[in-house]
């Protein structure tokens, strides 16, 4: 995103197709590389969460440090919809999206006229408020115990009913959601709306002075980002077969920021995806060797922030640019397709 402002009109791009190919075949090779199917589902759920989160952080430049709360709200909403209303997959996922979106919309009313550090502090405050409500309102959330026995609901398509109880089946449900969502978000970020968001990140004042209601844009993108978090939360509740409070904590809200930054959410649409994959692979691969893997991951994060704040995607873009310019023996043009 950094140098180029070229927006694509394509619905499916090479990186999207590549991600389809990789994630679509993942169950066939993930065990061969020593990992397991459930990890694949976990990765996709966090990818969905991270892509939505990056609308705020990477595109609009709004740092939310309480976003884990919305993942949690989505999970509880999914579970409660299943237990109390109608155990149908589409209905429960829709409930997770709508309820979380409403919480986001209400929260954003207090945030959308704020900037910078004040915005960030308010997101922490709201994240903590929701965390404590979830921990104390035990009639609804069952507090520290969590909402147990949330079922992996089958996919109903007319007369056809596909089970999602197994990890591979459930993985493909997550993949289907990812496949649709990634195209929606790609179009969104390449639309006029996405361009306004990126302009807000660069210069909020000027956006107002060329006539845009900045507060309304910030409100809408916060709400949208929360709705996506709710979707991820609904899937997360199914993955874990329960809704637990820990993801709503400040620590987990920090981890999503870390994933998105390390991947390069500021410079690329794909940054969050890279960051999530790196995080989970590091957790499982480093974690197999040492209990202190998070320390190493943290050090890696620090090194990146110090030497390459554009993250993995930034390193990738540098490589592409360097090879391209070497091939042509010319400096890379200022505008090239977004990758």
């Amino acid at each position: 995103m950094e140098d180029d402002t070229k927006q694509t009109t394509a619905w499916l791009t090479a990186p999207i197709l590549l991600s389809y190919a990789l994630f679509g075949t993942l169950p066939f090779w993930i065990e061969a590389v020593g990992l397991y199917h459930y990890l694949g589902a976990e990765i996709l759920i966090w990818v969905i969460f991270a892509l939505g989160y990056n609308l705020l952080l990477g595109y609009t430049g709004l740092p939310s440090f309480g976003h884990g709360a919305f993942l949690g709200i989505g999970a509880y909403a999914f579970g409660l919809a299943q237990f109390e209303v109608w155990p149908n997959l589409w209905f429960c996922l829709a409930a997770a999206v709508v309820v979380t979106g409403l919480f986001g919309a209400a929260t954003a009313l207090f945030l959308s006229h704020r900037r910078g550090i004040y915005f960030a502090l308010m997101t922490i405050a709201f994240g903590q408020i929701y965390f404590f409500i979830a921990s104390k309102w035990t009639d609804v959330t069952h507090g520290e115990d969590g909402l147990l026995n949330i079922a992996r609901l089958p996919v109903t398509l007319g007369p056809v009913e596909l089970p999602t109880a197994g990890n591979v089946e459930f993985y493909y449900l997550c993949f289907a959601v990812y496949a649709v969502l990634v195209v929606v978000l790609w179009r969104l970020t390449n639309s006029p709306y996405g361009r306004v968001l990126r302009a807000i990140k660069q210069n909020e004042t000027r956006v107002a002075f060329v006539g845009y209601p900045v507060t309304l844009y910030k409100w809408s993108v916060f709400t949208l980002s929360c709705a996506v978090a709710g979707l991820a939360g609904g899937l997360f509740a199914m993955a874990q077969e329960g809704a637990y409070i820990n993801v709503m904590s400040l620590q987990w809200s920090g981890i999503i920021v870390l994933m998105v930054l390390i991947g390069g959410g500021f410079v690329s649409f794909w940054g969050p995806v890279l960051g999530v994959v790196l995080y989970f692979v590091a957790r499982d691969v480093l974690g197999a060797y040492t209990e202190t893997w998070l320390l190493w991951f943290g050090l890696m994060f620090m090194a990146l922030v110090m030497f390459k704040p554009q993250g993995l995607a930034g390193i990738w873009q540098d490589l592409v640019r360097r090879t391209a310019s070497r091939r042509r023996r010319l400096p890379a043009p200022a505008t090239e397709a977004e990758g």
Partner: protein
Amino acid sequence: MALFEARGLHKRFGAQVVLEEINLAFEAGQLSGIMGPNGAGKTTCFNVLTGRYKPDRGSVRFDGADITGMAPHRIVARGISRSFQIMNLFDEYSALDNVVIALPQVRARGFSVTHALDADTDARDRAEAVLDRVGLKGRERVNVRSLSYGERRALEIGVALATEPRLLFVDEPTAGLGTGATARLAELIRELKRHTTIVMIEHDMRFLFSLADRISVIHWGQVIAEGTPEELRENPWVRRSNLGGLA
């Protein structure tokens, strides 16, 4: 009646009164200048007139309607635009995209998630025309950070112009420019003046006096003198404060 009128504007920051009592009127089709020493409140005055700050007292009217304390985007929608003294551009965007986003037709579709902006040749043509007007033809695809200082100053005006204002506020357009660039800017403003009502803060007296139809002198948060450049050359206030520097 004047196109734009400010009555009794008062603005304080904490204990410091920056605008004491500002009364201004700008006529349609004219270029009105604002001058005054450093710290006189010129930029604050601009900020109040264009909606960046709300005045503590007083009123601002544009085209017969009260716009006091209105949010900037609403003021822009009514046909007022401004450029900034300290440059306020979109640094990650090309010159062209800085202008594209300011076009009213793009703004009208700001919430669109389906419109393909890069396939919008009409928007591109209009934006290219704006860049041509401000002397940036051939620099459309250049990233803002790669433009020269003078080019960015021109783009600063281009972005304001792209909103298609009826009234354009320009804050110290010559700041930091060399003689050549200042001369080109004078040409540009002379050309803009034919179609747009302009209000300009300017330090460079020669520049301002050669372009303005009327000038207001602001000092101590008040308008201490007002008139045509000829009248002001003779004004004892202006002479005494050595603001003219033209004698």
